[in-house]
């Protein structure tokens, strides 16, 4: 039931969906625009997303509610199949990176469930090294996914099962050793737990708007942004920074935003080597919910947030009062900006 609802709500994000079908035009317009503004500050060429098997633009709205069924106790069960595999990913135009991936993509599938749901993940390791799924959430030690606990050796399959809590914007990643290498090679993904409105009677409407597929949620333009980076020459310093893996991509193809609908961003920092990353929005301010675990903002009316490694949060903003146009957002470490973490919203009336 919930599954079909969420499919409908995906279609409901019409503005975003329709842009996906005509990316070429948007990219042409923006190239000339960005050249005018930023001189020659860009990477050169185009990434072959089809060969990569994923498109950073599509990842923005690619929520995975899993295989949904009801348990005998009335609890919703959501089942996922995730595999780990080694593959070459073109992380910037012409640069092939020997990545480790969950389901062949970076970040891995965006698991989106509701608070209190039962989550069951069959994890098969088709890679050449041991890997785990380590969830940031409240669960028992035996499903923690660390070396020695549900660690899948190459060729093995393990099953993780836990109840989804607390609600918020979380992540999962491989926790096999050596940690740095397993993380920055690409083994991470986002785990969004929507609040169960019944459990938050005092803010039920707010909670409802967070539930994927609800009527209140349909008017929100929800976007997933994973701030990540790649160290292509393995010197423990990143050569490329991005949102959703591909450097400069969301600058060359700005995210289409309908100005009269509010925007909610699920922002996760999985950058390795640099202790912090940040998100700065041009010409606008937003409310920030650190870790997404509250229904009232932890920071009100800010235009920059700083996130340490694995920190994440939810951003809510509106362009209702703005003229249509390009509104940039990027890390406010200029270093990261110039190495690819530079993006823009294209606000349309």
């Amino acid at each position, binding site marked *: 039931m919930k599954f079909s609802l969420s499919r409908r709500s995906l279609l409901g994000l019409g503005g975003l969906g329709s842009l996906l079908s005509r990316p070429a035009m948007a990219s042409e317009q923006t190239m000339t625009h960005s050249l005018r503004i930023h001189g020659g*500050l860009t990477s050169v*060429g185009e990434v072959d997303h089809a060969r990569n098997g994923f498109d950073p633009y599509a990842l923005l709205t690619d929520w995975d509610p899993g295989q949904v069924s009801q348990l005998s106790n009335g609890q919703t069960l959501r089942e996922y199949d995730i595999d780990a595999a080694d593959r070459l990913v073109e992380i910037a135009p012409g*640069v092939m990176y020997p990545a480790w991936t969950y389901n062949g993509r970076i970040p891995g599938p965006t698991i989106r469930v509701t608070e209190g749901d039962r989550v069951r993940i069959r994890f098969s390791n088709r890679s050449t090294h041991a890997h785990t799924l380590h969830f940031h959430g409240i669960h028992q030690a035996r499903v923690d996914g660390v070396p020695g606990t549900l660690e899948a050796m190459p060729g093995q399959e393990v099953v993780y099962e836990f109840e989804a809590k607390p609600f918020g914007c979380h992540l999962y990643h491989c926790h096999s050793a050596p940690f740095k290498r397993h993380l920055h090679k690409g083994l991470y993904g986002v785990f969004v737990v929507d609040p169960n409105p019944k459990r938050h009677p005092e803010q039920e409407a707010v909670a409802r708007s967070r539930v994927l597929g609800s009527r209140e949620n349909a008017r929100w333009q929800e976007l997933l942004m994973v701030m990540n980076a790649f160290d*292509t020459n393995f010197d423990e310093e990143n050569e490329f920074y991005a949102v959703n893996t591909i450097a400069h991509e969301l600058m060359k193809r700005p995210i289409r935003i309908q100005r009269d609908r509010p925007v909610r961003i699920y922002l996760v920092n999985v950058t390795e080597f640099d202790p912090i990353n940040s998100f700065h929005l041009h010409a606008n301010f937003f409310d920030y919910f650190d870790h997404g675990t509250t229904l009232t903002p932890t920071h009100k009316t800010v235009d920059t947030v700083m996130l340490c490694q694995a920190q994440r949060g939810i951003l809510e903003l509106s362009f209702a009062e703005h003229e249509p146009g390009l509104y940039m957002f990027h890390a406010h470490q200029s270093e990261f900006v110039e190495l690819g973490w530079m993006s823009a919203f294209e606000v349309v009336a």
Partner: protein
Amino acid sequence: MKRSWLWAVLPLTILGILIAVFLRLNPLQVLVGSAPPVESIQIERAVLKSDEPIRLLIRGNGTDPVQIAQVQVDGAYWQFQQDPPGEISRLKSVQIEIPYPWMEGETHHIKVLTATGLTFDYSIDVALPTPDADPARLLHYGGLGIFVGVVPVGLGMLFFPYLKTLGNQGIQFILTLTLGLLAFLLVDSLQEGVKLATEAASVFQGGSLVWLSAATAFLTLLMISRRGGNVPEGMALATYLALGIGLHNLGEGLAIGSAFAVGEAGLGSLLVVGFTLHNLTEGIGIAAPLIRLQPRLWVFVSLAALAGLPAVLGSWLGAFAYSPQWAALFLGIGSGAILQVMVEVGSYVRRLNEPRGSWLTIPGLAGFSLGLGIMYATALLV
């Protein structure tokens, strides 16, 4: 017996077949496995012009072709155009144009990323417009070459009338002083050559290039100077001295020209003064074998030109067409020439010192050490 030429052809034919079979079967696959090829490129030179893109000359240096994917300037990805486009094969070079607003007098760091994400760094230590080879610039660099090459050698030769007043001991002293200065130049040229060789693409094997060109130049010049069976002295010895020192000054000119062109020397005329003082001694050395002769003025002029003018050529090459592998080659040849002159001056002194037949006397050693000392002290200035 008539068919004996076959035995020259057969080994080569078999070798050709073996190479073809080897490349076809690729037996090394077992050893290499699936390891990716090691990519290597050498960024040889950056050319800067006011209000123009940064231009880089990049040469393929590895066994397999390398594809350049992205270029960073000062930690920012920047647009670039490669000419010719595509992969860079071994020894081939390409030019890359980066429309980056570079800043005069500041440092810029360039990082070139290949398709596998490997990075190659290059730094422009002091960004200054690369000189154009227009007449005015040529004149300036030529003047510089004359000032560090021809002028000091000529001034050194002005000691000639004084040298003539010296007795046998005095002449030996001056000649061993020349030996000392040559020994310094030999070590200096070889070191400079080997150092430059490391800046050249490794495929050129710059280090070997220096030593081998030095050996070849040495043997060639020695063969020429000894072809009559006699050890050169007087006019002939002075000419060889001038030639050897001239080849060294070519290398020196290269160093000065390129240093000015890339802005490294832009801060001090001390460098030029130092080289001038340094080279004064060379003029004395060239004049020393002529002491027993009555040479005309034009002899001195030609010797000074032979020893000094290469500095002009060197400074032009260094400023307008610098590449480290050529500089290393020139320095190697210069070293060989200096070694040949050392051998000849040594034999000359030995003959002056008959019947003992050695230059290693007390005044000889004193002269040699003083020669080294003067060169070392004046080199402190550069």
